[in-house]
């Protein structure tokens, strides 16, 4: 019997190859921050199809990219857009309006209720939010019942949201799969907790001693896979490392808007330039350019 602990660091190719057609993946981050973009681009390069995507409570355009690249069959998301940059994701609109993807209609807390149910092995979690709205009409998996205690108020039963792999971006992680967020955590811990397997995209792999120096900071313990990809969140921000690349985001918004309006050539060109063209993550970073990347640096605000 070996006394050596199992190390889970993988190449991005080996990690992404584990995401198979038809699986359910959860995608971490929130808004313009902390999305596992390098993993997403690799999944698209692999031509993975028919995914169920469980988005964060406020998905940004990372999910919109997966939709526009034809990887998604079903979407669990309370919102897809990016605030001032893009109030509604263009590919999301295009694919939902033309019924090319199915939406599991929910709200932020209905999403969490489903994740809690999955994480804790319960048949459902109960929540009053969503009663009196169109959500239960649009999502027949949500079952309205009358509170059995007080016997007067309506409640929704939210069934478990099953996830095969959660893809989460962290600031750093060790080789044993202990990841630490170095800024806001959003809903990442709950996406991870509901999943059967956890894949961490990390800015840096750090020695285990760094993790032990402040174990309170460990947000995700014992992930199944750790992939080191500096600037892996680009064009979005990674808390503690770099801010969002506004120019690159506007480029995305323009291309996806063209796609929605039927100009598929512009969209295909975007995918070629940013996803299919670069052979790997570092080739992708070459297309962004060192000057641009260094300019996105953010000085740490909090210390550990």
């Amino acid at each position: 019997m070996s006394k050596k602990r199992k190390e889970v660091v993988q190449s991005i190719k080996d990690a992404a190859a584990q995401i198979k057609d038809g699986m359910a993946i959860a995608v971490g981050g929130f808004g313009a921050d902390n999305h596992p973009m390098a993993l997403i681009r690799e999944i698209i390069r692999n031509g993975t199809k028919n995914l169920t995507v469980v988005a964060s409570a406020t998905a940004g355009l990372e999910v919109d990219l997966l939709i526009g690249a034809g990887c998604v069959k079903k979407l669990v998301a309370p919102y897809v857009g990016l605030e001032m940059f893009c109030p509604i994701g263009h590919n999301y609109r295009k694919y939902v309006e033309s019924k090319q993807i199915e939406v599991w209609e929910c709200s932020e807390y209905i999403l969490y209720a489903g994740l809690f149910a999955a994480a804790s092995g319960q048949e459902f979690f109960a929540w009053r939010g969503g009663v009196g709205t169109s959500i239960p009409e649009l999502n027949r998996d949500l079952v309205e019942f009358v509170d059995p205690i007080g016997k007067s108020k309506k409640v929704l039963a939210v069934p478990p949201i099953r996830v095969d792999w959660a893809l989460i971006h962290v600031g750093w992680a060790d080789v044993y799969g202990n990841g630490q967020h170095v800024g806001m955590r959003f809903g990442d811990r709950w996406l991870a907790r509901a999943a059967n397997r956890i894949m961490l995209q990390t800015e840096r792999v750090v020695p285990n001693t760094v993790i032990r120096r402040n174990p309170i900071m460990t947000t995700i313990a014992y992930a199944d896979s750790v992939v080191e990809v500096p600037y892996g969140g680009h064009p979005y921000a990674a808390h503690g490392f770099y801010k969002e690349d506004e120019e690159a985001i506007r480029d995305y918004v323009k291309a996806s808007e063209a796609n929605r309006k039927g100009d598929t050539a512009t969209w295909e060109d975007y995918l070629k330039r940013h996803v299919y063209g670069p052979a790997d993550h570092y080739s992708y970073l070459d297309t962004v350019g060192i000057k641009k990347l260094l300019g996105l640096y953010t000085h740490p605000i909090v210390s550990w």
Partner: protein
Amino acid sequence: MRPTGDRMSEYSWKELMAIVFSREIEDTDKITSGAHTEIFFAATMLAQKTHAPNMKLQLGGGVALCNVVDQEVAELPKTSTGYELLRYCESVHDHPDTFITYGAPGGSRYYEPGSEFRNVNHFWFADKFFVGGIQADKYGNTNMIGLGTKDKMTFRGPGTIGINDIAVGVRDVYVFLTAHDKRRLVEKVDFISFPGKRICRENQFNGGGPKWMVTPKCIFDFDPDTLEARLAKLFPGSSVDDVRANTGFEVKVARKVETVAPPTREELEALRTEVDPTGVLRH
């Protein structure tokens, strides 16, 4: 913009909105401000800096509990989730916490009179919240889901985000529409993402539903008996007829309709020097 040479008597629509919402905020409030940042972040930060230093403020989905009373705001945040928000906050939580562990109870003004104890039966996870919509109707039902029917959605909206979750637990919600026309203000919304006052009452929610519906032309409040919207305040430059002509439901008018006071010199100066020094709201 009003055409005058005096800088402090000119203001943008966004600045006006930030100041109007800031005036609504009280020192005892607990407030949550979600996505679509700039106007509400400005309103809440301005309130803390001018008249509500104890107001409890959650900014964005990172659940950053912020107090900026003695903090310099170098630039209004452009997204509601950015790392820079950590400059202003004293506490950070997981996002689900906003609905459960951070929430109860509401601001102290709304506890039982005379009681010094928090009363969790008065479960408001915030006293005030701001929501948007692609449509709103006369009951204050708002729609972020889409246009059309269940079987044929001709326009897919952004999604409900968490606003229905907030309906069950926020005392006063301010519905905010960025344009005022018959496509947005309709007799009946195609889908309900945030239920209006009537549905909130029927379902015995702790949350009170919409307090106001604010548009670029006016502010509607709600008749306490019928729970229907009524024109309560006009913004400078609009009129009752103008509102009627551009609203898709029959406009009921409150007994007394006031015109919203334009920003004072002091309000604008505080906004521009303390909260929005780079002029994010000016454009």
